[in-house]
């Protein structure tokens, strides 16, 4: 329960690959299986985008065990980069995505380096404050949109070899969101087995062992933070094309609470946990909405109650229940 899930034995790599391919194909056709309506496409696209957004926080929270409250900043960097570069300079999707990655890495490196020598909760404080300050700057700086934001972002265009991929409608945007989600999942799964991922986990689980092996926990924190930023940033990048609008509302604490809740709801250190968490939460808000203020109460309560009563999330709850069975 404390370590990562034990990996399936390597003796059946073919079966495992077949399973992954099968699930991916089913996932790709899921909107059509759900009726192929534009509501199905838009809800699933939103789930995919939000899940990718949550994976950025997941990397920091699950594997490093620290809390970044500044990922709305990277989310907004993605959105604002896509909006500004495509509206003002007519750049295509690849260029805006690359710019998003570069800017997110730069911002994360700066924040991480400044807080390198501070205690953990100062790191959380500074990341939280950074998001608030960035909101004020975005709200007041008319050159990047100001309080009105930027409206009328053109459809996403991704030139690919000979053809140009365009994402004008929700059903055209779905493949992009789905591929982004798959790439993110592949990246996280790779990260969990990487040297950095296992070291981060060691720092979290056994700081004494990490110290005795000469690991500097603060450098690990910096590296993991920098890796996590572009993930959330790329989600914001696609969100800007989906909504065709960005504004200071991208900094709202809703997104921050959403990211944290999606990660803790199913359970930390579960690969598909944030995806399921995001899907459950978006489904509640889109299909069983109780109105904006009640949705806030639901989302905040889920976050607080899960951590207070079942810190290991739904997975932990399931394990406890199945263990109690005779």
């Amino acid at each position, binding site marked *: 329960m404390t370590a990562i899930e034990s990996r399936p034995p390597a003796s059946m790599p073919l079966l495992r690959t077949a399973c992954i391919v099968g699930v991916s194909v089913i996932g790709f056709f899921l909107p059509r299986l759900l009726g192929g309506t534009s509501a199905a496409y838009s809800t699933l696209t939103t789930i995919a985008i939000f899940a990718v957004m949550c994976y950025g926080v997941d990397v920091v929270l699950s594997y490093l065990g620290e809390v970044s409250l500044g990922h709305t900043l990277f989310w907004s960097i993605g959105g604002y980069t896509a909006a500004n570069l495509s509206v003002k300079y007519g750049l295509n999707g690849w260029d805006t995505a690359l710019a998003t990655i570069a800017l997110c890495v730069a911002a994360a490196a700066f924040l991480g380096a400044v807080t390198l*020598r501070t205690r953990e909760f*100062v790191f959380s404080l500074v990341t939280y404050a950074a998001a608030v300050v960035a909101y004020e700057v975005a709200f007041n700086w008319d050159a990047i949109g100001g309080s009105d934001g930027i409206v009328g972002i053109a459809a996403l265009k991704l030139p690919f070899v000979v053809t140009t991929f365009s994402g004008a409608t929700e059903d055209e945007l779905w493949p992009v969101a789905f591929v982004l989600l798959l790439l993110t999942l592949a990246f996280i799964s790779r990260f969990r087995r990487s040297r950095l991922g296992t070291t981060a986990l060691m720092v979290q689980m056994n700081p004494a062992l990490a110290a005795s092996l000469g690991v500097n926990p603060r450098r690990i924190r910096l590296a993991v933070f920098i890796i996590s930023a572009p993930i959330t940033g790329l989600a914001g990048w696609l969100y800007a094309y989906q909504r065709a609008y960005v504004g200071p509302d991208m900094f709202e604490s809703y997104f921050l609470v959403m990211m944290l809740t999606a990660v803790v709801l199913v359970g930390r250190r579960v690969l598909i946990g944030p995806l399921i968490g995001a899907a459950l939460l978006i489904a509640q808000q889109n299909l069983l909405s109780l109105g904006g203020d009640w949705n*806030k109460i639901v989302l*905040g309560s889920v976050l607080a109650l899960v*951590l207070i009563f079942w810190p290991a999330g739904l997975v932990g709850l399931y394990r406890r229940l199945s263990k109690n069975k005779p």
Partner: protein
Amino acid sequence: MNIAQQIVNGIVLGSGYACIALGWTILLGVARLVNFAHGQLYMLGAFVTWYAVTRVGLPYPLAILAAMLVLAALGLLIQLAMMRLVMSQNLTSLMIVTLGLGYVLQGGSALIFGGNPETLPGTLSRARVELGPLWFTWQDVLVLIATLALYGAVWLFTQRTRFGSVIRAVAEDPKLAELFGINARVVYLLVFIFECCAVALGAALVAPRSPILTSMGFNEVIMTFVVVVLGGIGSIGGALAAGLGLGLFTAFFGAYVAQAYTTAAAFALLLALLVIRPAGLATK
């Protein structure tokens, strides 16, 4: 001449920052706990005061008392719910839980008080004092005096009384303190309730200066962070000095550089300090 007025404005702003940050400073300094719902508690304190004055018709001092009682009761419930996390010193989970609870408070307050900006009516905040070319309001005087008195009282209480040393013992090592017959749960409970009361008082005193909104908690809290970290994380004298210093800084920055970017400038100040002195100004 304008400089003198900016110094007055700075002290006015700074005493407000210090007043709101007092609860957090105590919570962090003597109990080593964090509370990311602080901004929403501030918002709630302001709205309960507003409700008591405009809807119930209580006089201002009684409305302050009502706000403190409501927040004390709320603080009791929150802390009881979080007790297991508090006793295990699980800061990571505490940060996230309080953030979630803050979000619940924001949604709940919007349901109860509505989404419109409101203004706390205060006779004191409209009573201007003019000293030659300088001006301020009686509310500002009240905030400054209350802040200085509160900080003095809290400093005396934590440094000079037996209960103060009990709290510090619990902060150092809750398990060891329990061996010496101290009930750490009760101490944590009291400190958290004190934080809620202090932020309610701060809100009731400071909020009449500007319109209040149920969504303001997220942004209001940043100055508290800056004060607490600048002041050296939990140092009472440091927080007071940092609050006043930050007030002067924002007053001058707002007047001479750019009003819209004062929060950003305060944050830049914080970042610069974290690089030079990661543990804050008050440490040796």
